[in-house]
């Protein structure tokens, strides 16, 4: 279709300008039409409205006591919510960030220091680290410990030992009140 330039008689330039313009506009219309027609098919692969509807989750934090950790589902993944007691907060803030594999200050990872909200998926190969249930092994920094390949996270869920390259991700969230957050 774009090969109209190869047509015989193309070598005649006299009287060809109107024909060329016609063919050019035909070609342009065809190209625009084809591009416009492809978009719905591509967009249909994007998350559908029902998937998007589940893309935000609201969590009521009131029942979570100090020192308690909660796991909720968000976009099909676990999210760890830690109501951090003062010793965990201090341990997190006292760390020298230049020693970290993925340097981040604790204050950059939380909105209120007593609430840590992170995606509970190890940044190595995707296992769910232990530490959110009572009795779980929290690893040497009292944060989280991934049993698959031994990644160790501290009380700000930053990577300290083991193969994971990055800290546990902080999802987009905001406080809708003092005791509730909306994730996503």
């Amino acid at each position, binding site marked *: *279709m774009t*090969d*109209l330039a*190869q*047509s*015989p008689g193309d070598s005649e330039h006299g009287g060809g300008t109107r024909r060329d313009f016609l063919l050019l506009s*035909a070609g342009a219309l*065809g190209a625009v039409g084809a591009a416009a027609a492809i978009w*719905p*098919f591509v*967009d*249909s*692969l*994007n998350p*559908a*409205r*029902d*998937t998007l509807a589940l893309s935000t989750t609201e969590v009521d934090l009131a029942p979570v006591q100090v020192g308690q950790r909660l796991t909720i589902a968000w976009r099909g993944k676990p999210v760890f919510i830690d109501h951090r007691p003062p010793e965990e907060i201090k341990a997190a803030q006292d760390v020298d960030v230049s020693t970290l594999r993925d340097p981040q200050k604790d204050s950059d990872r939380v909105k209120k220091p007593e609430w840590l909200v992170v995606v509970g998926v190890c940044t190595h190969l995707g296992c769910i680290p232990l530490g959110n249930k009572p009795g779980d092994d929290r690893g040497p920094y009292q944060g989280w410990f991934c049993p698959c390949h031994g990644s160790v996270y501290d009380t700000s869920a930053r990577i300290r030992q083991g193969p994971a390259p990055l800290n546990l991700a902080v999802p987009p969230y905001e406080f809708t009140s003092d005791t509730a957050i909306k994730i996503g």
Partner: protein
Amino acid sequence: MAAPPPSAHSSAQPGAPARDYGRLIRWIDYRLPFVASLEHHVIDYPTPVNLNYWWNFGSLAGITLVIMIVTGIVLAMHYTPESSLAFDSVERIMRDVNYGWLIRYIHMNGGSMFFLIVYIHLFRGLYYGSYKYPRELLWILGVVILLLMIATAFMGYVLPWGQMSYWAATVITNLFSAIPIFGQDIVTLLWGGFTVGNPTLNRFFSLHYLLPFVIVAVVGLHLLALHQHGSNNPLGIDKRGPQDTIPFHPYYTIKDMFGLCVFLLAFAILVFYLPNMLSSADNYIPANPMVTPNHIVPEWYLLPYYAILRSITFDFLGIPSKLLGVVLSMGSIMLLFLVPWLDTSPVRSARFRPIWRWFAMLLPFDLIALGYVGSQPPAGFVVTLGQIATAYYYIHFLILLPLIGKLETPRPLPISIGAAVLAERR
């Protein structure tokens, strides 16, 4: 660079591209001659100069096949072929999947368009004698494509698992029970159970996904066969020399693109403003094995075969009416395979056959009558009309086609295509 060895292909494939596209193309083409092939088959291909718009429908059919496959593959990404989930998955496509409603309506109405185009394409072949020597195999491949399309469409219609999906599947699969001795066992095999159910749905989904690619392969053979001797033309006479033909590109490429625009316009009106006109409201009711709809009707493009099936209301020569109905209904398509040999006329195009052309033009109306019969409850005058129309259909092919070819005097044919075209210009 040494000339490539001459091709042993009987369709005289060229060795190298006729035009210079640069070193890269030359390198590829020497190893896999796709550009040379494109030039030979699409660009420079000598095509009769006098083709009319009835010749647009072949390319339209090919494009519609591509549309059906693309929309079908995308739909299959969201559809669930399980009987308790299928209907809801289609509703999810309609409501939640981005542009899902559009892709579904295109697929649904595209099926109807595909059949309309192919029927017109078929009637073009019948009227102009395109099935006659040396294009008999071309014609046969076309009928094979039609059969594959019917099977594909039938199975596709079951997938939304609406009332009509379920009951059309039940009625049509039950037809196989008409086969003596093994009939019921065959039906059970097809169903994978004691009624149409989830096993049936799953296998129909698998086959509905497969068959279109089989159709693509047969279309490939159809085009290969076409290019052995080139297209027929409205005069039905062979091309004799270069004054009878023009290169396919740009003449027929632009004409096909214009035809495509007209088709897309009609198609768009259907998809965007009348998307449910051609289908049954009952299919928006989830399948219920306990309730049969008042009127089980197939999609419009299957109505003639349905009418023939139901018009045999009596046993004949010891053959039960049910079996006879199935035989005559399937036979109406199988008969098409024999058309090249049923036609005895020395002349191809009905333009030069003064008596036959009226019957050739009558046939579509006979099929419309059959379609009407298939859409109505089988009672009263409708049954009689169906029987007359079925009888005419068979008489048309088995008696009139051979007889009239022998008896009529064809009009004198023009000397050549080129001469006829020149004569028209004066």
